[in-house]
């Protein structure tokens, strides 16, 4: 029921009551008088004050500060020194940061397609509604509830060369995390492992929202299971797919915890030195160059804003299929 539908009823109730009782005692739920409007404004200000303070002090103000920091040289010890765009020039021409951008894109490009495809595959299997599907659904989400840092530490042991579980099982001594060729696949693999179940849930919800008549109609027309999936279900999953891809890409661009646990200090030959890890190292570990780190953080922010805006452009062009 929309607010507009409720309005006439409410005003009717209020008017009939107000003729019997005193007018001041019957404020309806929408503004009628200037006094009422003022009271609502005051109340709103009181209710919003704490969250507005938090938002301003800890989300908006930091954005201004990080912009200011990016224009300064600051090593936490000596006083800040204004350097103009020096940090920006530095960061944008710097090989280390270029490498981090490349590693991040590589990470996102390895994680997202596999995570999405596996999540969709499992969701399709679960959506058949076989007995026990509920239990599998719960099991698959377990990694996602745990701290990425703790999971990273667990996998660091599993992938350890001599006493790790994986090498132990296979009778090998592969240096998963210290070889430049294997570190990135290992880090991406652990991330995929922890995210697949979460992705599955969204596809499962999307699949269950597809009206049974649509699928039945296609089957009556002679479509087989394969055709039903590719021609009917997948296109109807558009909005879900979109949500999963966009939120997945945004969070993969910021990945830090599990990468920090698995391959500290940027990994072997900086092969897992993704942006978030570079920012941390630059600012707080060894680098102590907060100006440069701030410029890097703003580059990452700009990338994420562009992704979000592209998403809205895409949404405006309607990827959804209207079923009504």
């Amino acid at each position, binding site marked *: 029921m929309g607010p507009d539908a409720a309005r006439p009823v409410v005003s009717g109730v209020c008017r009939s009551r107000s003729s019997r009782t005193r007018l001041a005692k019957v404020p309806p739920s*929408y503004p009628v008088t200037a006094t009422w409007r003022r009271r609502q404004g005051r109340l709103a200000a009181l209710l*919003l004050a704490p969250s507005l*303070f938090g*938002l301003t002090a800890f989300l908006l103000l930091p954005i201004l500060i990080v912009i200011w920091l990016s224009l300064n040289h600051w090593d936490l010890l000596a006083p800040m020194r204004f350097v103009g765009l020096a940090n920006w020039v530095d960061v944008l021409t710097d090989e280390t940061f270029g490498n981090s951008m490349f590693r991040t894109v590589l990470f996102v490009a390895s994680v997202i397609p596999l995570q999405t495809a596996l999540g969709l595959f499992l969701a399709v299997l679960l959506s058949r509604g076989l007995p026990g599907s509920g239990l599998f659904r719960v099991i698959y989400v377990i990694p996602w*509830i745990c*701290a990425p840092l703790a999971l990273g*530490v667990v996998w660091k042991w599993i992938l350890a060369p001599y006493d790790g579980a994986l090498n132990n099982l296979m009778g090998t001594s592969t240096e998963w995390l210290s070889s430049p060729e294997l570190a990135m696949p290992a880090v991406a693999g652990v991330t995929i492992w922890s995210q697949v179940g979460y992705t599955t849930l969204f596809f499962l919800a999307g699949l269950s929202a597809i009206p049974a008549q649509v699928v039945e109609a296609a089957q009556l027309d002679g479509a087989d299971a394969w055709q039903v999936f590719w021609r009917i279900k997948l296109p109807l999953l558009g909005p879900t797919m979109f949500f999963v891809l966009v939120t997945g890409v945004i969070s993969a661009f910021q990945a830090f915890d599990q990468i920090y646990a698995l391959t500290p200090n940027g990994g072997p030959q900086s092969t897992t030195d993704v942006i978030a890890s570079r920012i941390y190292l630059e*600012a707080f570990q060894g680098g102590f160059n907060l100006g440069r780190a701030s410029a890097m953080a*703003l580059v990452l*922010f700009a990338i994420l804003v562009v992704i979000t805006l592209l998403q809205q452009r895409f949404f405006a062009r309607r990827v959804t299929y209207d079923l009504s």
Partner: protein
Amino acid sequence: MSGGLTYLVLIAGALLTLGPFVLSFMTAFKSPQQFASEPALNPPNPVTTVNFAKLFGGAYGFISPIAVTAQMVAVVLVGQLVFSIMAAYAFAKLTFRGRDGLFWLYLATLMIPQVVTVIPLYAMMSAAGLRNTFWALVLPFMFGSPYAVFLLREHFRSVPDDLIAAARIDGAGDWRILWQIVAPMSRGIIATLAIITVVSHWNNFMWPLIITTGRDWQVITVATANLQSQYNANWTLVMAATTVAMAPLLVIFAVFQRNIVNSISLTGFK
């Protein structure tokens, strides 16, 4: 694909998902001697709590990180729920100038990632002399979250205006209407938000890592990371630490699994 093959794939997925957990729990309950001499798949024999005793005993002092994390989560949870509920009510049920613009501002802040704010927050906390204090851990998060405000507003809007008008006629003020009518009617989403908040702050790593130093205000994730880097080869001890770090949330998950699983896809929480 036949039913049998479907089950085979689903079971393989479940084994791959649970395997690392089972292996790490088993290792946590093994003696270092058994760990060094037997394959990883062997169950602990005998089951020993020696790693946990070491972990909680003098040298590693793992009690403190648990206490600090629990306090941090409690303060953030109460603050976020109360202040987000208040803001959501204002946006859903009150009429005031600039409401839509302000709500848009709340939504826009959802785009701001944590990795962008940690450096300026660090600068702010240093300037305020709050580095390495309890307040530095909770202040940035305890005044509500735009995401919670957004979700709650959607639900508060579905509370019928007639009901609120009726409560007004009966003499209830907005404060009472909020806490005795609107909030109880949105129990489900509030419970979901509570779980989201507990999970994400229990697991939070980057901000505590940056803003605290030493043992005093170390949270569980930071303590686990430090233990791992200091005692790299001592895997039975390290796996005891990861078990302790994950166990509380796994217990919460076991109790509320149906609600959590059902609400994730509704709220898209992360």
